[in-house]
């Protein structure tokens, strides 16, 4: 009970039950925009603009979903997103694991200084680099391909940071024992460190996949043909140049959110744990 006092005084005085009720009401309000997106997506056009607004569609329809699927390569966008996010995640893990090992389990001069240099590149977001990356990808003849989108997302410092943080806390006796048995670094990494660091790997996978799945600015510049669009870029194209059609927009947005939502409902605990790890020692 003592900790309850930490909350702003007013909340603490309300008593725990009332507090939870207030927070629950706030949480409902927080997710309401998402519910509103889903209901708008399955309402017929006149009902979308009905006053007073209806929360539960009176005559639900899949017309907007059909329109999205028939007028746009929506499934192709989904596939593109899966490929880009998958490649980013796999390659990030592959390059980050050995680097994090060298920055945590091996001792060498300049180790921490070099790590700090890598880490400080957190301050160079992708957005700052879009023009030079465009020049670079143009030279490599990669514009409008998958690699153009995922290559720049691989050397993100979060990968080595997250894994190193975890590796550092694994007791050194374990590698010593393996070394006595004649294991080299690769085998120690494979047989000792990796099996022990599943939570950190899971966190990195979740973080990188989400990051790549949602990336917008650079993807928009790198991809020019609608067949190559990822979901975020495709959704923007739905907006079109002509009159704004909220039914179609919300149906498209809802279709893009649905897989994320399902996955989140099933893996809520691991996703929240994983994402918490990326922001926390």
């Amino acid at each position, binding site marked *: 009970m*003592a*900790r309850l*006092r*930490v*909350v702003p*005084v007013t*909340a*603490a005085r309300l008593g*725990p039950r009332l*507090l*939870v009720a207030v927070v629950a009401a*706030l949480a*409902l309000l*927080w*997710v309401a*925009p*998402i519910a*509103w*997106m889903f209901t*708008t997506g399955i309402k017929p056009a006149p009902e979308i*603009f009905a006053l007073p607004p209806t929360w539960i569609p009176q005559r639900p329809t899949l017309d907007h979903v059909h329109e999205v699927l028939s007028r746009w390569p929506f499934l192709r966008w989904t596939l593109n997103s899966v490929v880009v996010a998958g490649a980013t995640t796999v390659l990030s893990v592959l390059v*980050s694991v*050995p*680097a994090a090992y060298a*920055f945590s389990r091996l001792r*060498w001069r300049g180790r921490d200084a070099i790590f700090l240099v890598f*880490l400080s*590149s*957190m*301050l*160079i*977001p992708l*957005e*700052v*680099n*879009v*023009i*030079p990356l465009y020049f*670079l990808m143009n030279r490599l003849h990669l514009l409008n391909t998958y690699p153009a989108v995922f*290559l*720049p997302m*691989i*050397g993100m410092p979060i*990968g080595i940071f997250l894994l190193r943080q975890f590796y550092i806390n694994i007791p050194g006796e374990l590698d010593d024992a393996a070394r006595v048995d004649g294991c080299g670094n690769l085998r120690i990494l494979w047989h000792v460190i990796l099996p022990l660091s599943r939570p950190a790997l899971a966190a990195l996978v979740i973080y990188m996949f989400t990051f790549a799945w*949602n990336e*917008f*600015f650079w993807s928009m*510049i790198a991809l020019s043909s609608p067949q190559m669009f990822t979901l*975020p*870029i495709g*959704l923007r194209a739905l907006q079109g140049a002509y009159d704004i059609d909220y039914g179609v927009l919300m149906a498209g947005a809802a279709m893009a*959110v649905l897989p994320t939502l399902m996955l*989140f409902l099933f893996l*809520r*605990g691991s*996703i929240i744990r994983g*994402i918490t790890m990326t*922001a*926390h*020692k």
Partner: protein
Amino acid sequence: MRRRYGRIVEIALFILPFAAFWILFRLGPVLYGFFISLYRWDPLGDAKFIGARNYLNLARDPRFWNALVNTLEFAAIAIPLIVGIGLVLALFIFAGRKRRVTTWLEAGFFFPYLLTVSVVGLIWRWLLDPDFGIVLIALRDMGIDPPVFLNEPRWAIPAIALATAWWLAGYRMLLFRAALEDIPDEFYEAARIDGASGALVFFSIVLPLLRPAILFALVLTTISGFIVFGQVLIMTAGGPGRASEVLALYLYRFGFEYLEMGQAAAVGMVLFLIILGMTLVSFRWLGFESSL
């Protein structure tokens, strides 16, 4: 001697794959971007060295200053909003953590973070639609005469900042909640025995102990604040007029609509320097022990 050499090679090989990507696609482009910003680029591919002319053009362009002011305004509203809401939500979740339902509430607050920026932009454009947006309808029902947020120069940026807070606050909440869990129980016990009030405990114990987490959240949010792009593009496209045109949008338009690649690259350098400067200020202000 040979063994030592072999060891250096081994360490280099462990780091090399990561370092290659990092140099090619992260550090390299910053230097390349500076190089690009010193030239005038013909759409046909010819380049002419013009020194600092692109930067001078920026300094002389009222539209650039407008974009800079808009970006600062967005950052000034969005950064405190995102970090503040994240902290308050974390305190709520932490206080109710003994109840099962709290994990679901936390999940609800966090979920928007998993959405892509175009979904966030589209949802909020619809919520804030001047005629049929449910937020405006609700406000009118309450007897308030709301501004038509996205179509009003003064309100466009605050409205986008609000949508951004809804999107990003959940991640900060997780970060702060984890930091709150790190504070040992004895701290609260001791304070309680001394008869300290809730507010006193919060300001004299909790807040100082959260400092590293706050610094980390601040740096993270500063970056998102200054590179804001997708929400603006989708919710207002920089409008009405140029009332919400931010630096990243200015960069995009000069690069890919007016094909002034040199000038766009110069904007990229300016953005980078702003982020660097703001981060140094945050470190200075809150001390160096972040949660890094």
